[in-house]
């Protein structure tokens, strides 16, 4: 009865001597990885160099195209243009919008999952809200909550929340019905089914939605800053454009890109930690 069982997938000869073929294979895999990293860096450095040279030799007008060195100069003269302040304003607004949008959206999705009737009634409204370009609501938001940080955060929430609701609800609904049935055979209540089956089954969906969310929240914040124009990287970019200081615009865009990547990476890090051990 107690027949020996070996788990599948455990046949990598860890610790033992590797065959020559295996060593060659591993070497090749490693080399290819290095090559890709090298080329990626190469492309970036090459483009930057080309940009700089073109600007110096006058192939392009560095007044309207800026150049890497001018961007660096702008970055290093932080004190003059308060880039750090603008950066932290945008970061704060984005994170606030993200947290409210993600958690609000998640909460709404949970409530909608609880009642099939309510979610059926609300479905067309959600679809319309989702397809509506939220930026069109900008003037309304400004009138309602004032032309300040609040308006910008509301914009970020408006853009990110509905997507979260729809995505999470879709995830909850497509939970393997067999798993739910299994829990029912143990007499699980709807509450328990959610806590023990539906929610944990959708953690990967949640992380996907968070990744989309952080990007959307940033879109909302920048759009809001374009409209409200008091502080933040969005403001800086608009301002730079208006006074024809393209160095400022380019610097703003680059900081924005780095910020987006940084936030995305943070979520990926948490995701890897949480989903460790879980395999599909």
């Amino acid at each position, binding site marked *: 009865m107690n*027949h020996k069982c070996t*788990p599948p997938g455990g046949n990598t000869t860890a610790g033992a001597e590797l065959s020559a073929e295996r060593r060659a294979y591993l070497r090749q895999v490693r080399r290819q990885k290095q090559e890709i990293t090298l080329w990626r860096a190469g492309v970036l450095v090459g483009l930057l160099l080309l940009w700089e040279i073109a600007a110096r030799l006058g192939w392009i007008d560095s007044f309207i195209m800026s150049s890497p060195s001018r961007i660096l100069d702008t970055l290093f003269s932080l004190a003059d243009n308060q880039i750090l302040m603008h950066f932290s304003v945008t970061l704060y607004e984005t994170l606030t919008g993200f947290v409210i949008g993600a958690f609000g959206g998640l909460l709404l999705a949970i409530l909608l999952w609880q009642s099939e009737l309510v979610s059926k009634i609300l479905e067309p409204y959600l679809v319309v809200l989702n397809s509506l370009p939220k930026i069109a609501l900008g003037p309304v938001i400004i009138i309602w909550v004032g032309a300040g940080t609040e308006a910008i955060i509301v914009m970020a929430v408006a853009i990110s929340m509905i997507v979260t609701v729809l995505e999470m609800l879709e995830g909850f609904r497509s939970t393997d019905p067999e798993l739910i049935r299994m829990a029912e055979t143990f*007499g699980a209540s709807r509450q328990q089914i959610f806590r023990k089956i539906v929610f944990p*089954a959708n953690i990967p969906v949640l992380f996907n939605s968070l990744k989309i969310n952080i990007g959307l929240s940033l879109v909302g914040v920048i759009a809001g800053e374009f409209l409200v124009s008091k502080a933040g990287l969005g403001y800086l970019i608009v301002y730079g454009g208006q006074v024809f200081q393209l160095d400022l615009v380019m610097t703003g865009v680059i900081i924005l890109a780095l910020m987006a990547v940084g936030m995305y990476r943070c979520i990926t890090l948490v995701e890897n930690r949480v989903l460790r*051990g879980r395999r*599909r």
Partner: protein
Amino acid sequence: MRELLTMQNVTARYQSPDGELTAAENISLTVSQGEFVSIVGPSGCGKSTLLTIMAGLKRPSEGKVLLDGEPITGPGGKIGYMLQKDNLLEWRTIYKNILLGLEIRNRLTPENIEYARGLLRTYGLWDFRDRYPSQLSGGMRQRVALIRTLAVKPEIFLLDEAFSALDYQTRLTVTDDIYSILRREGQTMVMVTHDIPESVSMSDRVVVLSGRPARIKQIHTIELGDLTPLERRDDIRFNEYSNEIWKELRES
């Protein structure tokens, strides 16, 4: 033998926008304590419906179902139900998976946990308790699912095509495995299957159903003694039983 489960004139209907469907009609069946009963029938005849009713997941449209003399009102603590898929939760370790049933029933007492741990040890899964389901073979996963159900100490086991997702080789060993475990635990079992040899190899009685709506056509008592499912397959009478049931099914 004590009568554990009784179905009296049970009829089951399903309602849908397209109309009414009678899945089973006038089913009367008694299962004694410690008995293994199989239900076979043409596919889609409503076999699983009967199990769902026994489990209390669906109420019969007519008739009564009694467990230990009391009517079944919902999926309670006395019934263990196993489905075709093992339905292990991929995000939980084997140990945590096994405690799921106790957790849902709010019965995570030290004694119950100790009992579950004992089952893990007895059935050779102790060393795998910190693994995740994806690291186990199909047969072992099915065994984990069985222990998860055993952990809540049910009085009767309902198996709904519990082996049909496994490949043939694994299925033979797993049925042997599960049969021995259930016998050893003194369990009562009702299983639904479309595999006639499987039903003959695993049960004391085989109930043959007609096509939809399912009615009881015949009940066969299998007298192959104290043999395991694999040993039964080698018995000469095994094929006779299988052929007889197969012919009956074909006529329906």
